């Protein structure tokens, strides 16, 4: 067991390696330090909310986990594997186990909802069979349709995603993430561009599906009611560091509200 793993599980050999363990993470954009010394863990089946002001680095942490952003310091372990040391095919394999739901959905416009969901299978298959629904095998197609059904969009399967509403697009993005069969899910403000009702429905759906699949989830959100309702633990980022790390049940709503208000100011 290497040093980074020991930092996460302690010295006892029988301790369980968490699905996600971040230690001493630091990111700079040019001369600007975004955050440093960030420690964070997500346990098996746990939903963790990450909160903080705009620019505090919440989304950047999620992007570091899949190496869309390269940190300058620290370690990120996914089930004991240091993703920062991976390159090429091994990095792709590590990424394939991490589902990512983006704030702006990041679907491919001009393609159907079904083709977009099918793209989730690129984590485990290659080639034209996972590019467009018309070229997919019956098995892949059926699985993609199953996930579209799970998010309530089976009737829109062949509709172009650029003709869907914001809430429907986010559901397609969730179905694509589920098609990936992830072992860890990262969610970056899925409710930010949606009206309160649709935002709540999307969060409810994500929470329900993640719990049903037993997948740990790390959520970034600016909505206090969602943070409280759909997470087991809340981590607050402020001033480039972790300001608090509390069980959601124990988190004082007044403290959180104050934190959100500070974050907005």
């Amino acid at each position: 067991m290497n040093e980074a793993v020991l930092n996460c599980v302690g010295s006892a050999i029988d301790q369980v390696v968490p699905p996600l363990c971040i230690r001493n993470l630091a990111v700079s954009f040019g001369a600007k330090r975004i955050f440093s010394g960030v420690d964070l863990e997500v346990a098996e089946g746990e939903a963790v909310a990450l909160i903080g002001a705009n620019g505090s680095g919440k989304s950047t942490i999620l992007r570091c986990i899949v190496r869309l952003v390269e940190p300058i310091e620290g370690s990120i372990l996914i089930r004991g594997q240091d993703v920062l040391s991976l390159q090429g095919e091994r990095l792709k394999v590590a990424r394939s186990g991490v589902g990512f739901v983006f704030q702006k959905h990041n679907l491919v416009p001009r393609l159907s909802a079904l083709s977009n969901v099918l793209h989730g299978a690129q984590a485990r298959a290659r080639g034209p069979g996972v590019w467009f629904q018309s070229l997919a095998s019956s098995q892949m197609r059926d699985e993609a349709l199953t996930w579209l059904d799970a998010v309530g969009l089976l009737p829109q399967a062949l509709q172009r995603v650029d003709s869907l509403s914001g809430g429907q697009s986010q559901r397609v993005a969730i179905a694509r993430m589920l098609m990936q069969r992830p072992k860890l899910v990262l969610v970056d403000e899925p409710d930010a561009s949606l009206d309160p009702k649709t935002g709540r429905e999307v969060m409810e759906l994500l929470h329900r599906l993640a719990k049903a699949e037993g997948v740990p989830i790390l959520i970034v959100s600016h909505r206090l009611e969602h943070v409280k309702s759909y997470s087991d633990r809340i981590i607050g980022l402020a001033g480039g560091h972790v300001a608090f790390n509390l069980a959601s049940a124990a988190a004082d709503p007044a403290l959180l509200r104050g934190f959100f208000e500070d974050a907005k100011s």
Partner: protein
Amino acid sequence: MTDASRSILPRATIPRFERPSAGAFIAWVIVVGLAVWSVGGVGLSPERLARGLPALSGILNRMFPPDLERLPQILWSLLVTFQMAAAGAVLGLILAFPLAALAAEGVSPHPVVRQAARALIALFRTVPDLVWALLFVIAVGLGPPAGVLAIMVDKIGFAGRFFAEAMEETDQGPREALTALGASRLDVLFCAIVPQAMPSFIATSLFSLEKAVRGSVILGLVGAGGVGVELKVAFDLFAYSTAATIIICIFLLVLVVEQSSNWVRRKLI
């Protein structure tokens, strides 16, 4: 708006035109000077144009009515011209796609590869198709194959540049999403980039075909086959009425291709 707020607006002081900066003024002087110098340099003058009008009028008189005696041969050559254009454009577009992918920032696997692909596209684009035709006539001999190759190379340069730009301009979001889930570079290219760039690809391809049809006529003048050869022979033999038939046929072909292209563009984009 209150009277008080109206009165503080300095309307009289808002100029209709902005005074150009010293740099802009110098740039304008250079541009105008360059135009005057160039027109003078090539010896184009109103007197010369006036002197040429009777000769032009004489040629036009001898062109009409057009001579239809060689119409079947002309139509056959026109068909060969269209085939040259279509074959050259399609081959050029097919080869332009991978070269554009290698030249596009964020798609190319390595900066050195990107620079090499860009240099090749620039070479293909900057050398005129007539020069390529001369080279291919020497390489493969007189006739349509030289024309097809010249059009192909020209279209690789033309479409390669626009394909690469279209790929670079696609939204980063879908590309990031697929990269984050472990997709390969090829998966990202075909799933996230190509669908987004498709309207631009279609527009560029149709424009390439139009350009190839217009260009293929000229290529015949240097022996690269098609109706251009007929046109050169007609002028060489002072058979202006036959030349008029050829020019009218070329005009109709270009018109049909452009109108068809516009229709396809409207339907697909």
